[in-house]
C-alpha cells in the first residue's frame, strides 16, 4: 500500500472529525428548533373507540412501542386525565372534523364533540366562559389557520403568565426575571470590568501581574463555586448584616438575608467580570501605539488620552465584551440555584409600589425553568415540551447576543485595520 494512500486515509479521518463537529452543531440546532416549537403546533384530536365499547376523545401526547398515551378532557385537575391505550384495546380511530378543543386559563384542556357537549364539560369542570383561553376545532383547521394559531400560542407563551402551579401557561415572569437579572448584573460588572481593563492596560508591575493572574483564576473557576461564594458571602454574610442593621424590625423573616435578585446579580457580575476584562483589554491592546504616542506628544495627559482617545476607540470591544458577558450570564443556571432563583414567583421584580424595584425579591429564570420543568414537573408529559420551549427561547436570546458580539468584533477588526499606518 502506497504512502500517499495511507496519508489520504489519515486526512479523511481528520476531515471526518471536523465533519462530526459540524454535524453536532447542525443536529443540535435542528433538534432545538423542532422540539422547541413543536409544542405550539396545533395537533389533531382523535376519537378512539375501545374494545369495551367506550369512545374516548383526546390528543395523542406520546407514542411507545407497545402503547400510546392520550390526553382526554381534564375535568378535575391539570395532568389528571391521561389514558394509556394498547393497540389491541383499540377498535377504530377517527378524526371527526367538528371536535372542539378548549383550553382554560389554568391550563386544563377539554375536548368536546359539539357546542352543547362543550357547555356540559365546562360546567363539569367548574369553569365559566371567561376562563376559556382558546377554543378551536383543530381537525377542521387548514394549514394557514394552523399557522395563525401557532403564532398566537407562541405569543401567549412569551407574553403570558404561568398558571398557579407553573405546569403550563406563559413564561413572562421568567423572561423578565432573566432580563432584569442580566441588566442588573451588567450595571455591576461593566464599570468594574472596564476600569480594571484600563488599569491593566496602563500598568506593568507586580500588582498588575497579581491582578491578571487573579482574573485568570476567576475565569477558570467552575460556575457552581460562584454560587457557593454568593450564598456564603453575599446572602449569609452581607445579607444577614444588612438585615440586622436596616430591617431589624422584620427579623427573623429575612429581607436581604435570603437569596434574591441583587445577590444573584452580584454573583453573576463576579462570574462575568473576567470576560469583560479580557475582551476590553484586548480591544485596548489592539489600538496602534502610534495613536497613543501621538496624543501624548501633542500634550494630552495620560488621563485625557485614555478618556478622549483610547476608550472611544475601544467602544466596539467594550460592547462586544458586554454582549459576551450577558450571554454568559443568561446561560448560567447552576450558581443561581444557590442564590435565589425559585420555581414560581409570579410577581415581577418591579411594580407600582414604592420603591418600585425590589432587589431582594426572589425571581424566576428561563434556564432554571428548563431544569425545573423537565426534572420536577408534576405532569411530565407537559413538562418536557415546556422545558424545550423555554430552552429554545433561552438559546434564541443567548445566540442573538453572541452573534452581535461576533459582528461587533469583526467591525472592530475592520476599523483597526483602517487605523494601521500604511
Amino acid at each position, binding site marked *: 500500500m502506497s504512502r500517499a494512500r495511507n496519508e489520504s486515509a489519515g*486526512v479523511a479521518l481528520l476531515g471526518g472529525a471536523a465533519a462530526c463537529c459540524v454535524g453536532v452543531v447542525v443536529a443540535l440546532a435542528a433538534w432545538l428548533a423542532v422540539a422547541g416549537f413543536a409544542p405550539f403546533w396545533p395537533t389533531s384530536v382523535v376519537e378512539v373507540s375501545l374494545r369495551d365499547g367506550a369512545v374516548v376523545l383526546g390528543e395523542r401526547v406520546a407514542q411507545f412501542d407497545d402503547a400510546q398515551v392520550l390526553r382526554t378532557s381534564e375535568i378535575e385537575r391539570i395532568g389528571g386525565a391521561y389514558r394509556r391505550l394498547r393497540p389491541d384495546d383499540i377498535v377504530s380511530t377517527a378524526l371527526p372534523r367538528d371536535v372542539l378543543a378548549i383550553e382554560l386559563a389554568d391550563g386544563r384542556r377539554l375536548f368536546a364533540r359539539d357546542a352543547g357537549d362543550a357547555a356540559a364539560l365546562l360546567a363539569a369542570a367548574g369553569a365559566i366562559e371567561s376562563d376559556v383561553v382558546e377554543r378551536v376545532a383543530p381537525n377542521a383547521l387548514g394549514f394557514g389557520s394552523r399557522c395563525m394559531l401557532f403564532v398566537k400560542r407562541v405569543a401567549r407563551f412569551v407574553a403570558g403568565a404561568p398558571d398557579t402551579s407553573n405546569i403550563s401557561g406563559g413564561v413572562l415572569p421568567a423572561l423578565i426575571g432573566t432580563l432584569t437579572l442580566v441588566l442588573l448584573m451588567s450595571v455591576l460588572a461593566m464599570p468594574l470590568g472596564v476600569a480594571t481593563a484600563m488599569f491593566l492596560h496602563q500598568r506593568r508591575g507586580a500588582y498588575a501581574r497579581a491582578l491578571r493572574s487573579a482574573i485568570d483564576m476567576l475565569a477558570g*473557576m467552575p460556575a457552581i463555586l460562584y454560587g457557593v461564594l454568593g450564598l456564603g458571602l453575599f446572602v449569609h454574610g452581607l445579607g444577614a448584616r444588612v438585615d440586622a442593621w436596616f430591617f431589624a424590625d422584620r427579623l427573623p423573616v429575612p429581607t436581604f438575608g435570603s437569596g434574591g435578585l441583587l445577590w444573584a446579580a452580584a454573583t453573576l457580575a463576579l462570574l462575568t467580570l473576567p470576560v469583560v476584562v479580557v475582551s476590553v483589554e484586548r480591544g485596548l491592546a489592539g489600538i496602534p501605539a502610534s495613536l497613543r504616542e501621538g496624543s501624548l506628544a501633542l500634550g494630552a495627559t495620560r488621563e485625557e488620552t485614555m478618556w478622549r482617545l483610547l476608550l472611544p476607540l475601544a467602544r466596539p470591544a467594550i460592547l462586544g465584551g458586554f454582549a459576551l458577558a450577558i450571554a454568559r450570564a443568561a446561560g*448560567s443556571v447552576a450558581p443561581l440555584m*444557590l442564590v435565589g432563583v425559585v420555581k414560581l414567583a409570579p410577581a415581577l421584580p418591579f411594580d407600582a409600589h414604592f420603591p418600585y424595584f425590589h432587589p431582594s425579591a426572589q425571581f424566576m429564570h428561563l434556564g432554571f425553568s428548563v431544569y425545573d420543568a423537565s426534572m420536577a414537573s408534576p405532569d411530565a408529559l407537559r413538562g418536557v415540551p415546556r422545558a424545550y420551549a423555554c430552552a429554545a427561547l433561552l438559546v434564541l436570546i443567548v445566540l442573538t447576543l453572541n452573534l452581535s458580539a461576533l459582528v461587533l468584533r469583526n467591525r472592530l477588526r475592520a476599523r483597526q485595520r483602517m487605523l494601521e499606518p500604511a
Partner: protein
Amino acid sequence: MFVLLLLCAIPAYLLASAASLPFAGQSPDWARLGILFGGSLRATLCALVFAVPVGIAAALFAAHFCAPRLRGWLRAALELLEAVPTVVLGLIAFASIAPWLATHVAGVVVACVVAPCALFAWGLATRTPRRRLGWMPLWGVPLVVAALVAGVVLGAGIDGTRFVPASPWNTLLVGLVLGVATLPTVYAMADDALAALPSAQTQAALALGATRWQALVTVALPAAMSGLIAAVCMAAARCFGETMIVLMASGNTPLGGFDWLGGLRSLSAELALELPRSAPSGAAWRELLLVALLLLATTMLLHAVARVMRTRLRARQVA
C-alpha cells in the same frame, strides 16, 4: 482598584476560612467525599474520551487541510456551540437521548469503532482532489452520519447482556453530552496552539519535499504538543466543574467504582443539590464547603498544568 484585588481574593479567602473551620468533634465523611470525587472524575474521563480525539483531529484538519474560508466558519460554529447554555444540553440528554441510549448502548459502542474505520477505509479507497478535500467538513457530514448509523444498526444486532445500563441516566450519557459541551474548548485551544506556530517551519518542511501530512506529523504536531496538552487540561477542568449537564443526566446516585454504565454523583451536583437546604455554619454546611474546596483545588491544579504547558509552547515559539 484596590477593591478589585479584594474581590479577586474573596474565593481564596472564603474557602480557606471554610477549611479552617473546626470540625466539632467529628471528622468529615471522607468516604463520601471520595465517591463524589470519583463521580466527577468518571464523568470527566468519559467526556474526554469523546471530546479529545474529535476536537484535536478537527483542529488539525482545520489548521492544515481546510479551505481557509471554511476555517473561519468552523470556528464560529463551534463558538456558537460553546454559547449554548449547558442546561439546554442537559435537557436534551435527560429527556431525549437517555431513553434512546438505554436500549442502544451496544450500537453506540460499535458506531464509535466502525465510523473511524469506515472513514479510514474510504480514504484508502478513494482519492479526493485537494480543493474538494478542503471542504470535507461540509460534504463529509452525510458520510459520517451514514457511518455512525451503520454502526448503530450493526450494534443493534449484538445481543449483549453486558451492554444493559443500570439506569438510563448513566456515565456514558454524561460523557457523551459533556463531550459535546467541551468539544469547542478542545477545538479552540488546539486551533490556537497550531495557529501560533511559526509558519516558516511548516513551509520549510514543505519546501524540502514533505507532503502536507508529513509536515503535520513530523513538524507541526511535535511543536504544538504542549499546546494540545494544555487544551486537554482546560477541557478536563471545564468538565470537572460542569454542573447542569451532570446534574440532569447522571441520575445523581452516589455510587463508587468505575462502572461506565452506572449512575454517578459529582462534586458540583452535590453542591447544587445540598447547599440550598443546609443551614449556614452547620455540620453539613462545613462538609459542603470541603466539597467546594476539593472542586476548586482540582480545577486550579488542571489550570496550573495548562498554564505551564502554554508557557512552554510560547518559549518554544520564541526559540
